[in-house]
């Protein structure tokens, strides 16, 4: 028997009653015992020094660029970056090159995952063949072979009939569609939220209406046939309001938000960490802030935090989107969209706790408990909770230290983060996956 004893931690998991619990015993990769104090002579002991212990994070939205663009990231470096960020389970999107849209591609991908991943890496399939929006993939077959769900992420599913049919088939398999909500026509090649920053910088606006329109349509489709839909990276107030109303009416929606939309607003495009410049300088047009959907106004950001508070939003996921230095070295409108988020997600959320905009419990609920619940339903995985018989995926956090984010901080192949140059509250000390320490900050 392999025993690991974690002693003297402050354990946070709102899904269970863990008052006065400081010690946790792991046996053969599973949580065996939780108690105020456990004394054992035959276990390896990790001393917590009152550090915080939460369940291993679950990221329902990553892009590891593998296969096809492995100069940006691959399954090995991506999973290492996620592990460093406190994640023990991730779900990869299928917009690779080629897209994962058939059984042989899925099986091949599984072999690569087995060989190279450091954590639990799960795969989505695209909804339509080649992500072209025309022909459905074999949803039954791919579900039987372990895909988590289906997504054409990067693009909305334009044809409502196809979305409706896909939802029916996916739901029948206890799965759903992860939908990228931005109406294709209304995006109109825009690159930044439509607001004062787009006007000042003369950048083409990517209309909020694009998101609102497709959120509205998707809610209607889900409502009409009582189907479960998952809406990715919600970014604005109006979408939040639509989802809130629909949920109150009993529509089955899971809504996701990213740490970058919770933490940053459109002013970050000026390259001054959210401050407004009196004149535009060379830091401006920061291509690392370019992301789809775009960073929105401060008002929108606040509405996303409120939506977490009243449970309109269920999931925080990174949309980890690595792009190489060369890719981002371009004009703002020509640089690819995406923010590197695996390693910074938890740190930014801890900084939001520091600023009294979120609580520890909300972080755990939205990035451990709820995604864990979804994966438990789909794949019968016992993850996302600190509870007896659950898998021993855990993260230790030193909330009294700070993390400095500079280029050297990243182990991801890419470093495309607007947070470079920031210092934030909290430090990820250790990530335990399957009962084994897979990341440790020894500094």
């Amino acid at each position, binding site marked *: 028997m392999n025993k690991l004893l974690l002693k003297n931690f402050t354990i946070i998991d709102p899904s269970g009653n863990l008052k006065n619990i400081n010690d946790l015993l792991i046996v053969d990769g599973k949580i065996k015992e939780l108690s105020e104090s456990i004394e054992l002579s035959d276990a390896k002991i990790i001393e917590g020094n009152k550090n915080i212990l939460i369940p291993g994070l679950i990221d329902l939205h990553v892009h590891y660029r593998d296969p096809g663009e492995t100069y940006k990231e691959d399954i090995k470096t991506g999973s290492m970056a996620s592990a460093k960020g406190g994640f023990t389970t991730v779900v990869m999107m299928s917009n690779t090159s080629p897209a994962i849209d058939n059984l042989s591609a899925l099986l091949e991908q599984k072999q690569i995952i087995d060989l190279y991943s450091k954590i639990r890496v799960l795969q989505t399939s695209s909804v339509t063949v080649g992500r072209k929006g025309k022909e459905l993939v074999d949803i039954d077959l791919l579900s039987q072979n372990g895909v988590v769900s289906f997504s054409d992420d990067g693009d909305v599913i334009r044809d409502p009939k196809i979305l409706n049919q896909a939802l029916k088939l996916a739901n029948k398999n206890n799965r759903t569609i992860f939908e990228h909500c931005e109406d294709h026509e209304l995006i109109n090649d825009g690159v930044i939220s439509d607001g004062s920053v787009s006007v*000042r*910088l*003369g*950048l*083409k606006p990517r209309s909020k209406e694009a998101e609102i329109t497709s959120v509205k349509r998707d809610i209607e489709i889900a409502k009409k046939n009582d189907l479960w839909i998952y809406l990715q990276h919600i970014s604005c107030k109006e979408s939040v309001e639509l989802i809130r109303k629909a949920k109150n009416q009993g529509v089955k929606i899971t809504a996701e938000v990213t740490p970058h939309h919770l933490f940053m607003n459109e002013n970050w495009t000026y390259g001054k960490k959210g401050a407004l410049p009196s004149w*535009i*300088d*060379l830091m*401006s047009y920061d291509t690392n802030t370019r992301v789809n959907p775009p960073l929105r106004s401060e008002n929108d950001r606040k509405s996303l935090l409120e939506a977490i508070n009243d449970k309109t939003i269920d999931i925080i996921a990174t949309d980890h989107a690595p792009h190489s230095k060369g890719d981002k070295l371009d004009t703002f409108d020509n640089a690819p969209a995406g923010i590197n988020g695996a390693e910074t997600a938890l740190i930014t959320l801890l900084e939001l706790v520091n600023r009294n905009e979120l609580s520890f419990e909300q972080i755990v609920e939205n990035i451990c408990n709820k995604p864990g619940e979804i994966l438990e339903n789909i794949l019968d995985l016992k993850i996302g909770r600190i509870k007896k018989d659950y898998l021993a995926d855990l993260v230790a956090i030193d909330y009294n230290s700070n993390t400095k984010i500079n280029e050297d901080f990243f182990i991801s192949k890419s470093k495309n983060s607007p947070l470079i140059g920031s210092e934030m509250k909290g430090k990820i000390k250790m990530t335990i996956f399957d009962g084994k320490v897979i990341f440790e900050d020894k500094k």
Partner: protein
Amino acid sequence: MNYLAKHLLDIDHLSKDYIYDLLNSVKKIKNNQRKSDLKGKNVCALFYEDSTRTKLSFQKAASNLNLNFHNLDVQRSSQNKGESFYNTIKTINSIGMDLIIVRHFSSGAPYFLAKNTNSSVINAGDGSHAHPTQTLSDLFTIYELEKNFEDLEISIVGDVLYSRVARSNILGFLKMGSKINILGPKELTPSAIIDIYESLDNSFKNKIKFYEDFEKPILNSNFIMALRIQKERFDSDSFMNFHTYKWKVDMEKLKYFKKDVFVMHPGPVNEEIELSHEIVHSDRSLISKQVENGVYLRQKVIEELLENE
């Protein structure tokens, strides 16, 4: 700021006092009272968009300063072989230029260039963002008429949303203390402009007003600055119809304005859309003055950037 520093990317960092100094120097150049010689220095024009007046104007200015003017024909450059903008910048940097004059269809491109080169950079127009030498030259054209900027009301007419000239000129006139009326189709005159500019400086408060038609308050303007309507947009945006564009300034409309009102346009003009042919070539038009003064202003700007080196 009281100097141009290394680059001229927009006018937002320039103080009113500095702009006055600059305009006075341009006056001296125009009156042949001073002449610089920058022989041996190298200037490169890097134009990713078409241009008649701006490029020729810079070329003439460079020639007046005895500069070596190198024109990179972007349409026939390695861009067509797939070279990235960054690598083109690095290539020019290795060849070695004292100054790069750039026009680019992407807003912010001159900032990207300035960040990645050792040369000085002048923005000759970037996307919908800025066109600083046009603005400074327009300010000079008004200054030359011995007008006091603080007494002036300027009406900017047309496509403000997509116009780089509008963005820089609004800021320029605000800095000099003038009042601004913005007139045009609602879709092309975003009210966010008020929030943006008012937040920059307290003295800009209540200086910008919006109008949808040639209403009475506008008729008091001292200057009408018409902007080019981008024909290409008429096809893609259904709210605009080329034939029903109602903001054309012609002799008939001009009658309602003050007698001494002047009409300006950054060019190129779509005649009979923004301005009638008659107006363009009338004695109320400053358009040829604007072009003429552009050379002197650019001469001054180049001189200052290269002498600061």
